[in-house]
């Protein structure tokens, strides 16, 4: 049973926090931020190399930095932060103690040890294989081992999360169904378990192969299974980030979902075809019949796409309904204009929602069309697209949540609040711009993971047009702006933890779930047109998507016949 001396009540929010879980949340969040710093600096170095006028790193270091950037930021930063989110949602939001804190520390040690191990063998130059490590390119065995240890740690945390849900249910720490945000986190954890299993299935044989114990890894099989891991990881990120968007809508506006049923169903859709979506990474690969390809890119993908499009309306819609109930009822957009844009929790949340949808979403749906994939595959379009999803989307959502968590977990005021205010805008707009310019260059044929687009001194080389150079230069400038935003976020976070002003225990609530006026008219949605502004927003989104989608078909139709 739960023991009261293991809990504290947050004076700002009234939330009851299990102290052993709180320690783990803090440790995982701090580890996440440290790796964001390391991975972000590598990203900046890579971006400054791809900016033709700067061309910072020598070739070997470019490829080392790129391997480190992908590993540290996509894998380590994101997953450490998600571990903190799993602990928070299962304990604090359910008012519960956590299952097996000791195992939590074992998991943390495995993840940290694995991440450090992978970094050491990347930086010593023995694993310059990119984070995807497609065989027969071979890395140092410790690279695969590091990733496996990291994944095992993350898997343990998923089981602790499930165990905690069981405890909360048994000890009746909450009544009725799981809160929506916890439901979203549960979906993320279930996907994570499948994902990590796929990772193990492919990385363990690869480790044995790198040790010389297994003769041969089929390179195409590797790509298929690796992407069952790599693609599903992005579904974890989706579910986690959407749960955070809903959560912040409640923290700042007291928002409730327009309809619990719809929002939960939309989360559930992510589970339906999970295992199959990975094939859209192989659309320009040899093998795989047309029906396999179409099934995977349509049913398996569009079910998840449908889920995301539903959230794209219901999240702003829930904010809009809450704001209108408070009297911000003029016109279509008063609720949005008068939102707290100066609060980095809100600006980060809303920017990440918009950037994810308009940049990551529209381009993702288009590039994963079987045939269109051929005109972007492995160009800078691909990293352009996913900086719209994982950087301007997921990472920015995590930043927004951090600014809410800092005072709650560390009991300190956010350090340099003005800088914090700027950080979300700089990171969001910088990364959004970088994504767009990288995609523009990719449309014109620039290769990803490529050190020298001038092909200097190569008798068979050629020159890209001045427009391409303009886009690559602009990608460099926007990448610098985004990196400064990330550095500002890290400065505020680390500053708060180390030297932020302590909050007195009777402080007026800064942001409180109970403190904001709650919406009371649950189920009384009138005619069901409470969110007309959000409906206009998604209509604009749809127009952009349709136009962009068919423009790409047109471009595809102009190239050589290829059958």
């Amino acid at each position, binding site marked *: 049973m739960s023991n009261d001396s293991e809990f504290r009540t947050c004076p700002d929010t009234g939330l009851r926090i299990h102290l052993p879980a709180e320690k783990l949340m803090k440790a995982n969040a701090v580890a996440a931020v440290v790796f964001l710093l390391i991975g972000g600096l590598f990203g900046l170095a890579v971006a400054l190399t791809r900016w033709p006028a700067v061309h910072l790193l020598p070739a070997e270091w470019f490829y080392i930095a790129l391997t480190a950037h992908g590993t540290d930021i996509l894998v380590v930063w994101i997953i450490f932060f998600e571990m903190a989110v799993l602990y928070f949602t299962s304990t604090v939001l359910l008012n519960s103690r956590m299952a097996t804190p000791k195992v939590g520390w074992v998991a943390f040690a495995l993840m940290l040890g694995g991440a450090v191990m992978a970094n050491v063998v990347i930086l010593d130059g023995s694993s*310059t*294989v990119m984070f995807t490590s497609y065989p027969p390119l071979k890395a140092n065995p410790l690279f695969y081992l590091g990733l496996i240890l990291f994944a095992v740690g993350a898997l343990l945390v998923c089981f602790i999360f499930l165990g905690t849900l069981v405890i909360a249910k048994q000890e009746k720490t909450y009544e009725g169904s799981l809160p929506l945000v916890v439901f979203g986190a549960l979906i993320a954890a279930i996907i994570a378990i499948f994902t990590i299993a796929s990772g193990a299935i492919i990385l363990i044989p690869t480790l044995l192969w790198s040790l010389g114990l297994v003769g041969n890894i089929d390179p*195409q099989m590797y790509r298929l299974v690796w992407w069952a891991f790599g693609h599903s990881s992005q579904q974890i990120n989706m579910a986690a980030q959407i749960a955070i968007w809903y959560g912040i809508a409640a923290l700042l506006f007291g928002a*409730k979902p*327009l309809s619990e049923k719809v929002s939960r169903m939309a989360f559930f859709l992510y589970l339906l075809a999970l295992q199959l979506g990975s094939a859209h990474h192989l659309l320009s690969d040899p093998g795989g019949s047309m029906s396999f390809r179409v099934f995977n890119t*349509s049913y398996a993908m569009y079910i998840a796409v449908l889920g995301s499009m539903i959230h794209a*309306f219901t999240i702003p819609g829930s904010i809009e309904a809450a704001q209108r109930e408070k009297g911000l009822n003029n016109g279509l957009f008063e609720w949005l204009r008068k939102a707290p844009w100066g609060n980095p929790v809100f600006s980060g949340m809303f920017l990440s929602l918009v950037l994810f949808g308009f940049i990551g979403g529209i381009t993702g749906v288009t590039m994963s069309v079987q045939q269109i994939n051929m005109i972007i595959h492995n*160009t800078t379009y691909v990293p352009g697209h996913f900086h719209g999803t994982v950087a301007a989307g997921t990472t920015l959502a995590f930043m927004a949540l951090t600014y809410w968590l800092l005072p709650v977990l560390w009991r300190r005021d956010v350090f340099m609040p003005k800088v914090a205010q700027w950080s979300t805008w700089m990171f969001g707009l910088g990364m959004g711009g970088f994504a767009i310019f990288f995609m523009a260059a990719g449309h014109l*044929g620039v290769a990803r993971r490529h050190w*020298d687009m001038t092909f200097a001194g190569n008798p068979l080389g050629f020159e890209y047009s001045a427009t391409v150079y303009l886009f690559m230069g602009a990608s460099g400038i926007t990448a610098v702006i985004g990196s400064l935003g990330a550095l500002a976020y890290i400065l505020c976070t680390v500053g708060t933890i180390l030297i932020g002003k302590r909050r007195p225990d009777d402080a007026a609530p800064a942001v409180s779930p109970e403190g904001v006026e709650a919406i009371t008219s649950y189920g009384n949605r009138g005619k069901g047109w409470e969110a007309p502004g959000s409906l206009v927003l998604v209509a604009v989104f749809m127009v952009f998507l349709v136009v962009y989608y068919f423009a790409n078909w047109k471009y595809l139709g102009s190239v050589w016949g290829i059958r």
Partner: protein
Amino acid sequence: MSTHNTLTPPPNDWWRHPIGRDEVLWISIAAAWCVIMTFMMVYWYFAGNQNQAGEAYRISPEAFAAKADEMVDKYTIRTETELEVPVVAVPPGGDVYIVSSQYQWNVIPELKLGETYRFHLSSVDVNHGFSLQPINVNLQLVPGYDYVLNFTPNAVGEYNMVCNEYCGLAHHVMVGRLYVVE
């Protein structure tokens, strides 16, 4: 209950509350769009000229390289650059073997406008990328697999093959040429 939001458990009968009309409208539009997108892929498969599913066969790197060498012996018309890269003019309808390896392309193909060629794309060591510029057609080359596609060029000119899959520390030097002539 008065403070219900996304962070608190919903009322017990949450699944009985009706769905708003705005939600029904948007879900219908979104679902219809997903159906249209599915239809487009199938439609293009039958009516479009660009479909990279193609054919694929397992083949050992040695066997693939041997077929390519045979092609070079038969159809080389000249060599270019100090590396003496063979320019091969395979007759229309014939098989063109593109061998990628760290860090070069085996040949410079010379094709005739409007004719169709059976391209075989593979690698004899690690993954490479076949990126044809400036038309920006991009395909993945995987060792052990013969990726077969029929190419029909629709404009004359000088094209370049860029490797756009990371294949080792000199990946960026891997660039080649392709001609389309009248």
